């Protein structure tokens, strides 16, 4: 097991890009390799040691034996764990844009807030964010119709706009509230929201499941009432209580399911 600890000593105003510092690439790096490494900042590269104190302990035969601990405010470090296939990254602070983007395996834990595009085009693995995240969590690349296709995102705080945009697989679990258009254009997968939703979950969704345990502000006209179901089982997970089930979005001939907590959304009945 190899533990790589980066402790922030100077925060750059211009965002650093960490797409090259993933377990898959650095599992055989020693401390001296990190000290030689120049990290992309804007249109230049600067030594990693300008920004971080580096500690490397132990040995690893492959990326799955790597644990990277990022201590400090990483609010100006983009692409943390981007395209990683195995191993573990723990961010003890905030993470910037594209945290866990295109990741295929392994685990990322953010003990803080994550900026937009967390888990963009994720294919596998696990992303856990203890704080909030902003727009486009688990989304697609701009213009693509395939978003996150596997893995799981767990969000302990609340999510911003267009959560799980074009979701085509995997699971997103939000323990807090969620802003507009969760699961827009989604065609597969499952989004569970424990908190309240402002408006329009499932806009233009073709398939998949969305479950809202809290209160919904405005429902789209494209959803057709199906029935009230008791204790539904979705994607192998069972939920206790009564839920109003809608089908939609019929504007795109969608066959998705939207479940609203019947207790908290009585006015829709």
């Amino acid at each position, binding site marked *: 097991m190899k533990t790589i600890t980066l402790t922030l000593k100077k925060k750059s105003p*211009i*965002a650093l890009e960490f797409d090259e510092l993933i377990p898959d690439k650095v599992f055989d790096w020693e401390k001296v390799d990190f000290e030689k490494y120049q990290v992309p900042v804007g*249109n230049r590269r600067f030594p990693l040691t300008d920004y971080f104190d580096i500690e490397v302990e132990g040995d690893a035969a492959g990326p799955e034996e790597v644990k990277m601990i990022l201590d400090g405010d990483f609010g100006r470090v983009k692409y943390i764990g981007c395209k990683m296939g195995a191993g573990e990254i723990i961010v003890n602070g905030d993470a910037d844009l594209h945290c866990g983007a295109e990741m295929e395996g392994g685990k990322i834990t953010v003990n803080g807030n994550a900026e937009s595009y967390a888990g963009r085009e994720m294919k596998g693995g696990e992303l856990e964010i203890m704080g909030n995240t902003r727009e486009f969590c688990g989304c697609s690349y*701009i213009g693509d119709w395939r978003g996150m296709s596997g893995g799981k995102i767990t969000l302990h705080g609340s999510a911003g706009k267009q959560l799980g945009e074009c979701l085509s697989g995997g699971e997103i679990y939000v323990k807090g509230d969620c802003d507009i258009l969760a699961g827009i254009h989604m065609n597969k997968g499952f989004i569970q929201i424990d908190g309240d939703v402002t408006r329009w979950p499932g806009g233009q969704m073709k398939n998949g499941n969305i479950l809202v345990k809290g209160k919904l502000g405005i429902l789209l006209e*494209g959803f057709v009432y199906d029935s009230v179901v008791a204790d539904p089982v979705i994607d192998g997970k069972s939920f206790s209580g009564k839920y109003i089930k809608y089908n939609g979005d019929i504007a795109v001939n969608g066959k998705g399911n939207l479940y609203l907590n019947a207790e908290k959304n009585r006015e829709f009945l």
Partner: protein
Amino acid sequence: MAYEPPVTDYDEIVENGTCAFCGCNCDDLDFLVKDGHVVGVRHACRLGASKVMEDMDQRLLVPMIRDENGELQEVDWDTALDKAAELIANAVRPIFYGWSETSIETMKHGIRLGELVGAVLDNQATICHGPSLQAVQNVGYPVATLGEIKNRADMIVYTGSNPMNSHPRHLSRYSTFPRGWFRQRGRFDRTLVTMDPKYSDTAKMSDIWIGFEQNGDYGFYNAIRAALRGKEIDQDFVSGIPKEDIMELAEAMKNVQFGALYFGLGLTHTLSKQRNIDMAIEMLADLNKYTKWVLTPMRGHFNVNGFNIFMAYEMGFPYGVDFCRGYPRYMNGETNTIDLLTRKECDVFMVIAADPGAHYPGGAVKHLAEIPVIQVDIHWGPSTEIADVVLPGSFIGVECAGTSYRMDGVPIHMKKAVDKPETCRDDEWIIRELHERVQKIKAEEAAVASK
């Protein structure tokens, strides 16, 4: 409106000039020229005429550099260009913003410069029709030229747009009033619909006004689409509009021969942003099962569309193109000017033919005031107040010829009518000159590094 007598005191008329104001790019203007100045403009709207007629009192005439006391001091061209080139060459996160009021020929040199130094190239789409471009990337673009719409359309819909104020000749020249090949009676053969929360000047002259609630666009279009699919609408009111009206409107839109939808910033900058356009485009896709419908964004500046078309053609992305890693990247919220400024990432900002000082959010302007700003423009404006290097350009379409793209993507050659002031230079020359000077600095740096 006070009566203004026609201008009769002029030396010559330059015919078929193109207006350098809005995205209509009216190319039927006559410039009345006296002593090398445009003193009157025929056929233009008041907005266009007042821009084309020179306002020499605000004209930037000489290159300037801000001194230690914070005052802009006149310098020669060499000093100003060297200073600007030095700033650009040493920048780590430069942004070149603007481009929408200059020619495609200038942008060509801009891309070369941006690629050389690894800059972000962005234009006004980032604060206006960017969401439209994102939606187009998602769901396509049923486009038609303004000429086709003029000749064919029997229903014109303006949504989130008030062309009577922003594009005054749009209704009279392209959409509603002109007699077209299949619409011989002009206005009488067309139905004009305005969808806008405000009872705007365009709404006042429309046949139908749909005043849905603010931020209700997405839900409203979703309901129309549901109605088009044959669903009986459940809610009594959707986005503040009675369900009967929505059913009636859906039916009316189905039964036209050729419909055209124009949308403006009212659609791109409400709550659900790009998804409003996304939904509107898909609504037209649904309507095209019954009849012909097209849509066109109401672009603001005369060449804002040009930059997007040019960038998409050259680099694959329409705006907010980031060259910092050596190859073009594009990601909303990451490579757009406003985000980079509010995150305080940008360290050198070059503005070409735009006025961020007047139009940007406070936080962004605040950061602009803290970093070096290079301005290439023709007029003194709020951006000049925060600029550190000022390079006076020339006025495309009046003092200098160039190519621009109309809102529907038709390229138009804008001809020259008068000579520019002697102390000014063409935008194209300025950017080319900057490129050459930065190239020289970079070559020197590389030579030092290799030793």
